């Protein structure tokens, strides 16, 4: 085509200009342009990370609060009343309104603000340009916007906690009619409006980010960095971005219809409703299940949006610290791809008990259990990567191993829940809580910790305190199992989730002691995370300085940049790449960086 010539020429030119441009300017950056409205992907990554950490603390604190209620239903915490106020705590007990608001916000915040923005937002921003060999994201400006939309979403979400009628309290899945009718639940009034606005802003943020990540991975790879030479982190983050770009819009549509139902008298999701104290509503002809379909069309890919980046980072960290190539690189990409595709096809397995058409349900069972195959491939490949390696237990590596352990434990119960006949029994019990917290919540958290410990030297030019890291790891993994493993038993007793109090239930009240135990462990684990936070912030200023450019003897490109890279990442030319990222222990050499040309006498694999 006529413009291709121009384009081709100019795209190369743009590339060069881009780099030079930053060189000239990065000396006279102001505080605002460097730390606040920064367009440097590394700074934006740190912004995502720290905002995510703030949310993680808040979300964790929420879980501690509602665990207080579950663990000590008879105790009276009068001091809480002074801190939190009458809406939240009455007579020393957390009120049901507050309990449900806490459960809901805990879910929303952890799933979206911590594990989506905090995890994939941080590491996609930080690692993609560094590992593919680019000066910055394709569009640094949109990247900046992406963070600020996330920030806006955070502000709105936070403000929803303080409205008079209380924050949204209908569960993070926000099923209508409960979420659509302010008269059915006080939390569904202003709190819900703010919740939706926050989520809409969040969708915009994740779209801006996702488009950028895709374009960067495709277009901005340095010379020689073919797709099959990319580290697995990049592959994982790439698929994550694709999942986000294609599934978040569906959620947005679902929310828009919900907004209309809430405010403009439509009945997309409403039909045949009589609310106590209000009477019969005029809405007819909608279907509440439609929202669930739309929600889970995002909701299921969302699980993998959370999990894939952790998988990618774990693959990289396991390989680096075993001093061995990742086993089955192509199979790893293939299984990531398979998971990404299947993620879009299985959404209704969250809806087996909604009256889903049985035939349709059977196809969803089939597709759902198919996911176990690529997951199994990944697990066995990780195990084989460890096999006959030379393992260095850095804190990052420990968390990576912890991730694999948790992924196995949580993934296997997925086989129970994906099978609809069993799901009928286990649906919405503590079994589900145990399953998804282990496989998606804690495992992804472990992936995130692994990433932070591993790349912290690159982020801040200093080391984290390793001893604190080890303490953090051992308490967290032991705690995670102690909290969530016994929950399987509660689930097998049919104990429903999202209950404020079990004392009136003859069938479920036998777990009072266990609940107290779980709550206590949860508090200890939460306190341990504060230890990590302390380590994180203390080390930014006082940590041991990094002295070597490549402290782990790692192959990937980020370790070829200066210890504290400026905006533009490489001071000179971007290095060229000659090999894949996993030549560890090849031909008797400990590691061969990607930038080293393939020698004439090198063996093939």
């Amino acid at each position, binding site marked *: 085509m006529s413009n291709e010539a121009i384009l081709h020429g100019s795209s190369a030119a743009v590339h060069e200009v881009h780099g030079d441009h930053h060189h000239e300017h990065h000396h006279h950056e102001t505080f605002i342009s460097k730390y606040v409205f920064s367009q440097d992907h590394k700074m934006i990554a740190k912004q995502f990370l720290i905002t995510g950490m703030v949310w993680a603390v808040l979300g964790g604190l929420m879980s501690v609060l509602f665990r207080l209620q579950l663990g000590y239903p008879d105790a009276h915490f009068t001091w809480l009343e002074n801190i939190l106020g009458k809406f939240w705590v009455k007579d020393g007990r957390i009120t049901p309104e507050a309990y449900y608001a806490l459960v809901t916000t805990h879910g929303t915040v952890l799933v979206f603000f911590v594990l989506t923005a905090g995890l994939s937002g941080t590491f996609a921003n930080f690692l993609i340009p560094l590992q593919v060999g680019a000066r910055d994201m394709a569009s640094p400006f949109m990247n900046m916007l992406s963070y600020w939309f996330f920030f806006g979403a955070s502000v709105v979400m936070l403000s929803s906690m303080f409205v008079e009628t209380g924050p949204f309290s209908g569960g993070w899945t926000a099923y209508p009619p409960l979420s659509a009718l302010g008269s059915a639940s006080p939390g569904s009034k202003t709190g819900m409006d703010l919740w939706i606005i926050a989520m809409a802003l969040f969708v915009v943020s994740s779209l801006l980010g996702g488009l950028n990540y895709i374009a960067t991975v495709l*277009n901005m790879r340095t010379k020689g960095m073919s797709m099959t030479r990319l580290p697995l982190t990049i592959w994982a983050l790439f698929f994550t971005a694709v999942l986000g770009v294609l599934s978040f819009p569906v959620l947005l549509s679902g929310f828009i219809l919900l907004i209309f139902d809430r405010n403009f008298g439509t009945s997309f999701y409403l039909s045949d409703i009589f609310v106590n104290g209000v009477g019969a509503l005029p809405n007819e002809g909608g279907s509440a299940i439609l929202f669930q379909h739309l929600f889970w069309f995002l909701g299921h890919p969302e699980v993998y949006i959370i999990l894939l980046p952790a998988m990618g980072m774990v693959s990289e960290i396991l390989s680096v610290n075993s001093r061995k190539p990742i086993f089955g690189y192509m199979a790893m990409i293939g299984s990531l791809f398979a998971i990404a595709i299947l993620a879009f096809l299985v959404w209704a397995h969250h809806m087996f008990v909604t009256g889903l058409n049985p035939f349709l349900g059977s196809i969803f069972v089939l597709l759902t259990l198919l996911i176990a195959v690529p997951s199994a491939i990944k697990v066995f490949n990780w195990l084989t990567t460890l096999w006959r390696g030379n393992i260095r237990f850095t804190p990052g590596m420990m968390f990576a191993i912890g991730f694999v352990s948790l992924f196995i434990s949580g993934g296997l119960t997925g086989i129970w829940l994906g099978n609809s006949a069993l799901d009928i029994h286990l649906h919405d019990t503590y079994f589900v809580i145990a399953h998804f917290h282990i496989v998606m919540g804690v495992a992804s958290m472990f992936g995130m910790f692994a990433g932070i410990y591993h790349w912290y030297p690159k982020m801040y030019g200093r080391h984290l305190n390793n001893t604190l890291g080890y303490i953090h790891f051992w308490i967290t993994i032991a705690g995670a199992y102690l909290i969530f493993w016994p929950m399987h038993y509660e689930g097998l007793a049919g104990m429903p989730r999202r209950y404020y109090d079990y004392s009136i239930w003859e069938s479920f009240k036998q777990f009072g002691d266990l609940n107290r135990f779980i709550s206590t462990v949860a508090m200890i684990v939460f306190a341990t995370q504060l230890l990590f936070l302390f380590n994180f912030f203390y080390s930014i200023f006082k940590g041991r300085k990094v002295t070597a450019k490549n402290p782990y003897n790692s192959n990937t490109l980020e370790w070829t940049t200066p210890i504290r890279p400026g905006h533009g990442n490489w001071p000179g030319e971007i290095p060229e790449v000659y090999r894949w990222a996993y030549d560890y222990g090849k031909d008797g050499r400990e590691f061969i960086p990607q930038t080293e040309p393939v020698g004439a006498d090198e063996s093939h694999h």
Partner: protein
Amino acid sequence: MSTSTTAPVTTKWWSGGKSPFNVEYGKLMMWYFLMSDAFTFGAFLIAYGTTRFATAGWPNPNEVFKSYPFAGENANAPLVFVSIMTFILIISSVTMVLAVKAGQEMNKKAVVNNLILTIIGGLAFLSCQAWEWTHLFHEGAWWGRNPFINADGTQSTTNFTNFFFTITGFHGFHVFSGVIINIVMLIMTLMDKFEQRGHYLMIEKAGLYWHFVDLVWVFVFTCFYLI
């Protein structure tokens, strides 16, 4: 396809250092944005379809959309007005293509002319939609209000109008932002921004967006007016 400008077959598109698709990142992002937007519209239309499949009767579009401006109360001309709207959008798409082509030839004057025509097309479409909405509103239709009965004479739910106003409204919003984008493009062209840059790539991206709006209308038109 041009052969001289496409790289020879031996080129390794994927080996890094260049775009594997031979497009600059902005265009790539626009494409993927449009895909994600397609999922937004797709979700709306699929929700509409699901509701229709879940509902026993549905109003006959030919009974609903049978009027056109200045026709008076008893007009009975189904499909006429909407086909005018459709053609307006198709023509504005054509002028947009011509603007893009002119941009590739660095022909500023043609770009300006075609952009103006496109903007006029967009505004005309929006006016048509505004008329149709007001007309329906005066017939008693709005979000949550449906004066039309089902084609088989049974009582209808309000979801016909709910979906109609939501989806055409969302499409209209896209047309509106497309017009704004085109106006910005026009101003930038007039200010010689693209001449200075040496290429009219921005116009191409705006064009992609505009055609997408047209594309969505193809689906909306079929779903609401024809079947």
